[in-house]
C-alpha cells in the first residue's frame, strides 16, 4: 500500500508545474482526477501518466472527499475563493499557482532574474531546458502540499497555498542575491564555467560533442596539467594558483581547448578518470537513459500503452519502505 493511498486530488492545472506536483502525489498512491477526456496518445501526456480523467467533473461537487485541489489562478472556477472553499471544505489543501500554465513559467523565469543568469556572457540570456525550472517548482509545491496535509492530520485546518513561479525561481538565486547584499555587486551569467571561483572548471567542445572537467579547489592542478600533457604549466608563475588562473580565465581556456578538440568524449573520460579529476561527458537525455549508473539506479521503466510502449522516467526518491505505485 502506497503512503498516499486514500488521498483524492482534483487537478485543474494545465501547465508543467501543476502536472509535476500532481505526478509526485500520483506516484505515491494518490488518486489524481482531472477534468476532460483522456488523451488519445498517452505518451504525449506523459506527465499525467496514471491519472484519471473525468469528462463530467463538476465543481465544487467533485471536491467531496478530496484532500487536495490543484489549480492555476486562471483554471480555478469563478466563485471558488479561499473563503468559500474553507467554509465548505475546512480540511482541504488548495494549491493555486498564480501564473498561467501556457507561458507563465517562461515569463516568470525572464522577469525574476534566473534567465539572465543562464547562458554565455556574450550571448543570449537563456531559459532552462526542457521546462526544468517549472518541474522544480512542481516538486517544491508538492513538498508544501505534503507538509500542509500533515498539518491537517495533526488536527489543523486546511491550507491555501498561494504559489508563485516568480517567487519560486527567485528563491533559486541566493548566490547573486547574497553577493549584491554583501558586496554591492552582482555577478552575471558565465556559461558553464565559474571563472570568479574556480579555473579550470568548464565544458569544452571535443570531437564528438562536449566534455566537462574541473577541479573542486586549488588541489589537483598538477594532475590536471599532466592529464592534458602540459606539465610545463604546473610551476608556471602565471598560473600556479587558482586565484591567478581565475584572473586569466580566457587565456587558460585558449590553452586547454585544443587538447579537448582533438579527442572524443570516451578518450577524455578515460584520461580524466585515470587522473582522478572530476569530469563527465555532456550526454543527451537519450544517451543518459542508456548510462549504466542511470540503469543501475532503476531510473527508467516502460509504460504500458495501448499501442506502443514508451519509456517513462521513475521517481528519484529511492526509499526502503515507501514505494511508488507501479514502479513509478
Amino acid at each position: 500500500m502506497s503512503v498516499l493511498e486514500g488521498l483524492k486530488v482534483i487537478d485543474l492545472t494545465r501547465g508543467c508545474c501543476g502536472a509535476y506536483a500532481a505526478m509526485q502525489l500520483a506516484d505515491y498512491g494518490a488518486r489524481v482526477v482531472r477534468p476532460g477526456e483522456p488523451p488519445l496518445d498517452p505518451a504525449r501526456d506523459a506527465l499525467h501518466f496514471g491519472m484519471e480523467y473525468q469528462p463530467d467533473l463538476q465543481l465544487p461537487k467533485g471536491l467531496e472527499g478530496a484532500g487536495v485541489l490543484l489549480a492555476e489562478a486562471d483554471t480555478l472556477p469563478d466563485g471558488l475563493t479561499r473563503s468559500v472553499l474553507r467554509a465548505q471544505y475546512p480540511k482541504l489543501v488548495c494549491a493555486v499557482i498564480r501564473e498561467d500554465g501556457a507561458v507563465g513559467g517562461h515569463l516568470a523565469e525572464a522577469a525574476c532574474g534566473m534567465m539572465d543568469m543562464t547562458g554565455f556572457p556574450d550571448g543570449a540570456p537563456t531559459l532552462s531546458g526542457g521546462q526544468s525550472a517549472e518541474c522544480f517548482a512542481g516538486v517544491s509545491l508538492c513538498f508544501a502540499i505534503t507538509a500542509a496535509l500533515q498539518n491537517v492530520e495533526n488536527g489543523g485546518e486546511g491550507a491555501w497555498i498561494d504559489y508563485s513561479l516568480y517567487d519560486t525561481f527567485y528563491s533559486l538565486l541566493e548566490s547573486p542575491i547574497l553577493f549584491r547584499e554583501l558586496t554591492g555587486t552582482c555577478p552575471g551569467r558565465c556559461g558553464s564555467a565559474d571563472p570568479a571561483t574556480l579555473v579550470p572548471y568548464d565544458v569544452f567542445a571535443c570531437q564528438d560533442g562536449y566534455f566537462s572537467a574541473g577541479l573542486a579547489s586549488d588541489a589537483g592542478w598538477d594532475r590536471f596539467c599532466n592529464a592534458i600533457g602540459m606539465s610545463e604549466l604546473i610551476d608556471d608563475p602565471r598560473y600556479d594558483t587558482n586565484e591567478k588562473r581565475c584572473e586569466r580565465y580566457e587565456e587558460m581556456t585558449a590553452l586547454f581547448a585544443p587538447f579537448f578538440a582533438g579527442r572524443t568524449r570516451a578518450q577524455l573520460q578515460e584520461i580524466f578518470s585515470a587522473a582522478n579529476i572530476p569530469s563527465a561527458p555532456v550526454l543527451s537525455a537519450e544517451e543518459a537513459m542508456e548510462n549504466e549508473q542511470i540503469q543501475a539506479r532503476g531510473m527508467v521503466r516502460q509504460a504500458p500503452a495501448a499501442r506502443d510502449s514508451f519509456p517513462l522516467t521513475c521517481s528519484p526518491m529511492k526509499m526502503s519502505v515507501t514505494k511508488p505505485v507501479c514502479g513509478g
Partner: protein
Amino acid sequence: MKPFAGIRVVDFTQAHAGSLATMLLADMGAEVIKIERAGSGDLARYWAPFRDGNSGYYAFLNRGKKSMSLKLTTPEGKEIVHRLLATADVVCENFKYGSMERMGLTYEVMREIKPDIIYASLNGFGQTGPMKKTIGLDLQLQAMSGIMDATGAADGDPVRVGVAFGDHLSGTYMALAISLALMERKRTGQGQRIDIAILDVLFSLHRQRLAGALPACRLGNRSPEYAPCDGFRTKDGWLLIQVVRDEQWEALCGVLGLDELAARADLKTNQERLSRYESELKAPIAAAAAKWERDALAQALTAAGVPCSPVHTVAEAMDSPRSAGLLAEVQDSALGAVRFPDSHFHIDTIDTKVTCSAPLQGEHTVAYLRELGYSDLEIAALREKGAAEGGEDA
C-alpha cells in the same frame, strides 16, 4: 502552527544540497540540530560572499537551525551522537559514499538505537550503482544528466543552468521524501532509509522528452508548441515574447510595424508560424525589436495583449516592486542584519516567514549536552578533551 513542530532532525549535512533539505524542514517547524566538525565546521562557512569573514551562504542555508560542534572520531563524540540519536526522528547526511560508515554511523547502527529512525542520504550518484564512489560536482552532474544538453540555443553550445539547480532540486526532493517518510511512520510505525542522487533527480526531468512529448534537441528560448516564442535583443536589453494565440500574433505585428507579415495568409495559424519561424519570422521580428528600448517595447506589447517580459538582471529583479517582501531580513548572529531569499511558500495557515538566525558554530553544544544528561563536570571534561566545543556562554 507549523507542520513539523516537534520533529527532531539530527543533521550531518554540509555544503549546499543537504543543508537546503534541512533548511526546508526547519522553515516548516522542525528542530534541526546541525552536527559540525569540531574545528573546521560546515564547508559552507567558507563560501563567498562574506562579511567580516563570515559567510552569507552559510547564513542563508542554515537559518533557524541549531549547531553542535563535535569531534566524531573520539569515543566521547560518538557517545554524544548515540545519545542524541535516541531522541531523533530524522537523520540527514550528504557526505561522499562511505563516510558515515567510516564514522560507525550506518543505518543499521542507528536503527539499533532508534528503531523507527528515518535516515536520509544525498550525494551526486547515490548509495548504489557502479559510480556510487565517484565525486560529482554540479558541472559534471548537469553534464551527465542531460539537462545541460537540453539548455542553450539549438545551433549553439550546451550550457549549464546558471543557478545551483542540482542542489536545489535534490535538496527539495530529499525534504519531500522525508515528509512522505514521516507520513509513512504515522501510518505503519516504520522508519526507513532514503537515498537521493543528484544525477537521478536531474535525469528524471526528461520524462516528457523521453516519452516523445518534447523534441530531442535543445531549443534555446523557443517553445516546442508555439511561435513566435523567443528572446529578442532590444537597444538596451533582452525581451522574452510569448505568442500563443492568433490574435496575439496580429497584435505583435501591429506594435512592431510588421504589416507584410501580418497580411500573409500562410502565417495565420500557430502551426504555420511554428514551421516557418526559423526561416521567415525570426529575422524580421529581431530586426524590428532591435529598434526599441526594452521597457518601452514591453509596455507597448503588454498594452496590445501580447504576453512578454523584460529579461531582468538579478539586480533589476531585486529592485522591482514584484520582488517586494521576498527577502527575509534576519539579524544573523555572525553577520548582523542580512537579507536573503525568504521561504517562497505563502500558506494562510502555516507561518513560514524566516526570522531566526543561523547558529554560530557549536552555539548549542552545551544546551544539548545538558539535555542529554551530561553534568557540568562531564561537559567540562568533554571540552577539555576536544570532543565537544562551543557554547561557552550557554
